[in-house]
């Protein structure tokens, strides 16, 4: 019983990671209609920035999160403005291939710069946790979940309470009408993509605290983000939160189920995806497109 409770806690905390990773992915997909296959690479760039700041300058990983966000914001803006905007009206396959190409270039560059060695960010307080009876809640996991919720709140606020957010939502609802009322499409597209990338960067900073960092470690996050968005539903911040937490629970319970193991994490993600797509294509909380 207490073991199950512990797993539930760990699942929710892991869900926090998925929420933070999937927020940006969901935004870019919902507004730009781009499934960004380079999302996992953005996450890992964030992780590497945090690692460099931590290991070279001794910066606390949580303090480096704003740096991750800023660097990836700039990168995302440039990529969308310079490359992706050029194929945004082309069939889906083309943005798909383009972002895959970007992913390939980023991962290879990381490989050249940082080598394929495993890196990890281990501050003093990693490993300590809060004991409640027989259940232990790791501090870092708790902080990650908190930051994920904070990110979700920021995204919700930006989208629903600011002028920029109104512009982004308008573009997502009807590109041509938005352009008619004077919205600069190129800028808003680039801005949306940049926000998505910045969120990925922060998620990456958090992920460095949980697992080792390698240039290719980001790839699973792209598929997992997709599963989270499908699970929760597209087009709402609250749906991403629900999807992420639920996905974390499914992962932890699935990996601890008899007969399965760590080798099956992608297979579990995919099985969830297919079941949801087959029975509830709009996700748990999503709106029908």
């Amino acid at each position, binding site marked *: 019983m207490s073991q199950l409770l512990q797993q539930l806690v760990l699942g929710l905390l892991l869900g926090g990671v998925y929420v933070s990773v999937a927020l940006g992915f969901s935004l870019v997909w919902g507004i730009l209609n781009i499934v960004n296959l380079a999302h996992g690479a953005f996450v890992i760039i964030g992780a590497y920035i945090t690692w460099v700041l931590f290991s070279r300058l001794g910066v606390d990983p949580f303090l480096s999160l704003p740096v991750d966000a800023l660097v990836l914001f700039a990168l995302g803006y440039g990529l969308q403005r310079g490359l992706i905007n050029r194929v945004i009206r082309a069939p889906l*396959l083309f943005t798909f291939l383009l972002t895959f190409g970007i992913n*390939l270039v980023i991962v290879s*560059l990381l490989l050249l710069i940082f080598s394929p060695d495993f890196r990890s960010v281990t501050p003093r307080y990693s490993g300590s946790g809060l004991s409640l009876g027989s259940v232990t809640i790791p501090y870092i996991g708790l902080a990650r979940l908190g930051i994920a919720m904070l990110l979700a709140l920021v995204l919700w606020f930006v989208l629903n309470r600011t002028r920029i957010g109104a512009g982004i939502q308008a573009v997502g609802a009807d590109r041509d009408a938005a352009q008619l009322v004077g919205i600069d*499409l190129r800028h808003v597209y680039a801005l949306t993509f940049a926000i998505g990338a910045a969120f990925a960067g922060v998620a990456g900073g958090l992920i460095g605290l949980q697992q080792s960092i390698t240039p290719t470690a980001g790839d699973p996050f792209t598929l997992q983000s*997709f599963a989270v968005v499908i699970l929760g539903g597209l087009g709402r911040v609250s749906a991403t939160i629900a999807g992420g937490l639920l996905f974390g629970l499914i992962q932890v319970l699935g990996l601890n189920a008899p007969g399965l193991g760590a*080798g099956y994490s992608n297979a579990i993600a995919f099985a969830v995806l*297919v079941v949801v797509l087959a029975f509830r294509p709009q996700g748990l909380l999503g709106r029908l497109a």
Partner: protein
Amino acid sequence: MTQRFRPPATALRRLFVGGAAIALVYVVLAPLSSTDAGQQLGLPFLTDRLWFRVATTVAMFVVLASAWNIIGGLTGYASFGNVAFFGLGAYTTGVLVSLRQWPFGLALLLAPVVPALFALVIGIPLLRLHGHYFAVASLGVGVAVGEVVNNLQPLGASTGLFLPIVRSNLLFFYLMLAAAALAVLVTWVILHTRFGYGLLAIRENEEAAAVIGVNTTFYKVAALMIAAALTGLAGGIFAQWNTFINQENVFPIEYNVEMILMAVLGGAGTLLGPVAGAVTLELVILRLAGGGAAAAYSQIGLGVLLAVTVIFLPRGVIDFFGGQSRLSLWALRRSLRETSV
């Protein structure tokens, strides 16, 4: 969208077809010069045995790209899971030959069957999805099948499977070449039958196709099964040719991206576009390939090639030979204007 009529570039087209015919004859005959008899006669083609690896690999990608073209180019369903069919075909042959001691020829007959049945099972739910949903769900299939195989002890798990070595480069080259010819032939037949028109109708407008009486589910699943069978056949040949298979060499998601890129680069939805794309691109990739830092640079090169292709040549190279566009700055600019904001 209105398209002005422009006479096809016949001279270029003739040059292209002529060149391709000569290249084809060379490719078919050259291997003979490496046999012992050929060496003694001093046949003048080419005697480098290393060349087989290159040629066989190129032929393999012709199969993969043409097969992808059937589901991705003709039917319009961008499958990122075709590599699962390749892996399943390879493992079918691998398991039968190495664990059940079947003769290779017999095992190869089953290599297309298992992936096709798998395509039937996953195709019915997956092909109800559209656009991104289908693309990523199929990507999930590609990744997940490889992962499951990698964890199954009876299939050798992460150690992989070893097949008894068959020393005959000629055999594998001609097998792969035959598979490539079969893939092109199947595409040709599809393009010239009612079935093919149904697929094209689905690609252009699925609801309209259903209204005029195309059984869309049947057509789509059948197209996926055909693609799976061809891809699995290539996988089966690869397994015996390479004599060693594991998750890494028969389920690499890069193969899937390469086959798509080849089809798109050459011209998705055309008969020979994927062939042209596969030959060109695979030669470039093999040229760039290497270990260590060289591998990273070749990946960067592939990524840049993807970006350039997608941005500047969305209709593929084959479009310039007898298609509607000519290879000119003007055509490139026009395609950019059509797709950008």
